[in-house]
């Protein structure tokens, strides 16, 4: 009995304009589906019950990876994580994203799950996922941030009533690569920086991204800025397959001789948005890349962290990952 979800109208447009028009008409009752791993879980649990589900996978213009004139790449939002991982251009120029995509979930999920879905998936807090009336679900309590609440996987930073974290591996890499997101809706196209695409509970407690009903994330653009830099990606999770990160780190470093000329470091799963570590970047920029610099950077990594009852371990974990990333 558990394997049938409530009924809905499934529509399968083959062009973006139709999809946007369908989603706009459906408003709050509409739902865009691509890989379906996040969507179908919600439907099966009867927590989200859209009446119109728009299948985006028939829209070919949203697929594929193209080099752009400035030497960067544009990745269609429907490109699968396996395609992102194995694409030769991404491997050569932006290996950070390739590594991150290859660490998502399991092979089967990467084969069908899309990069657009990976960055727009909803929070993985199990209280929220189990349909409780928490803040994120429109209620007025948090079940995780309580003396008894299980919050080992939850946030260190930026809590505002909700303590859920960004669950995505590719999101951290995209923030470090200065990527931007291309969003289309009935009034046209807008391009926003990845850092503005992800939003925390203080801005909108019910959404992890700025996507609104009727919006479609169509592509992700990565500028040439960090092409061919030195990269470090690591994901720490309880299991090597399937699992969401406890902490992940995505770093891009440009060297000048033995000096760190410029650097981007972003940690996932420590805040509701991928947390860019600007303070660490400022500390180590211009220094020799060695153990001392790595220790200085690591010492500042978790500054300001406010751990919950069961997630103190994330602080040394984060510091350790930053140390490894800078040391190389």
């Amino acid at each position, binding site marked *: *009995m*558990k*394997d*049938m*979800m*409530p*009924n*809905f*109208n*499934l*529509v*399968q447009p083959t062009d973006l304009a139709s999809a946007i028009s*369908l989603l706009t008409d459906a408003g709050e009752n509409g739902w865009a*589906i691509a890989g*379906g*791993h996040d969507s*179908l*879980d919600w*439907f*099966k649990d009867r927590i989200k019950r859209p009446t119109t*589900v728009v*299948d985006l*996978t028939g829209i070919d213009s949203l697929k594929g990876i193209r080099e752009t004139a400035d030497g960067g790449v544009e990745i269609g939002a429907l490109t699968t994580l*396996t395609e992102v991982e194995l694409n030769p251009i991404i491997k050569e120029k932006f290996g950070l994203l390739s590594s991150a995509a290859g660490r998502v*979930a*399991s*092979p*089967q*999920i990467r*084969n*069908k799950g899309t990069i657009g879905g990976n960055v727009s998936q909803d929070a993985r807090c199990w209280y929220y996922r189990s349909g409780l009336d928490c803040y994120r679900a429109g209620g007025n309590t948090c079940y995780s941030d309580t003396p008894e609440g299980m919050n080992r996987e939850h946030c260190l930073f930026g809590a505002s009533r909700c303590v859920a974290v960004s669950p995505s591996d590719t999101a951290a890499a995209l923030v470090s690569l200065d990527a931007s997101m291309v969003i289309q809706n009935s009034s046209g196209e807008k391009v926003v920086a990845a850092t503005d695409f992800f939003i925390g509970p203080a801005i909108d407690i019910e959404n992890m991204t700025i996507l609104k009903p009727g919006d479609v994330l169509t592509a992700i653009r990565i500028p040439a800025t960090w092409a061919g830099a030195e990269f470090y990606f690591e994901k720490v999770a309880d299991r*090597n*397959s*399937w699992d969401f990160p406890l902490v992940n780190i995505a770093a891009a470093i440009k060297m000048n001789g033995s000096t760190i000329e410029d650097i981007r470091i972003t940690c996932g799963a420590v805040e509701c948005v991928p947390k860019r570590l600007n303070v660490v970047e400022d500390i180590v920029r211009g220094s020799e890349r060695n153990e001392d610099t790595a220790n200085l950077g690591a010492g500042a990594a978790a500054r300001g962290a406010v751990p919950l009852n069961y997630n103190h371990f994330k602080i040394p974990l984060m510091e350790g990952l930053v140390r490894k990333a800078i040391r190389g």
Partner: protein
Amino acid sequence: MQKKFSSDRYDPLSTERDALSRRTFIKGVIAAGTVAGAAGLMTGCSGGDSSGGGAGSVERLVTINVNGKDRPVDVMPNETLAHTLRNKLGLTGTKLGCDRASCGACTVMIDGVTTYSCSTLTHMVRNKKIVTVEGVGGPNGELHPVQQAMIEELAPQCGYCTPGQVVSGVALLQRNPSPTRDEVRHALSGNLCRCGAYNNYINAIVKAAGRA
């Protein structure tokens, strides 16, 4: 044959009862579609709009290509591929474990790529080629080298995850005929085995690769 199961002549120790195993019984029910009332309970699809989608929604009568054959089937808009395969096409080799893309028992190949059929809407794969565990063997029932090697390596214990492991192994050897042990581990990393027979499965696929 019928008499054998009447209460006065039923012998619980008789080996003849195997003639009607649970599997053939269930398959028979699916094929005959006789338990219309119970089917609603079994599939849970009785609620809501039983006629399927409303205006503008997908056409319910579709043809999907499974194991090289075009199979006409009536598919609800909210129906997963695992459901269609098991409950409508009688292909019960594909198992449902978690129904949440978290175990791998339902793994099938879609256009040669492994996918969780529990988390795929059937309507989203209408124009693709689906291969289930029933479709990996030879035309006359010969086992695929991966299946044969799994028998030899005693890979299945309870056997519930085995169809998924077979499909993941076959898909790997199709794109990479001579994988390293690490590549095999990676390819099977989306298939849980609660008996913990991972090493046996990996041994089997390495062995099958040597023969292919």
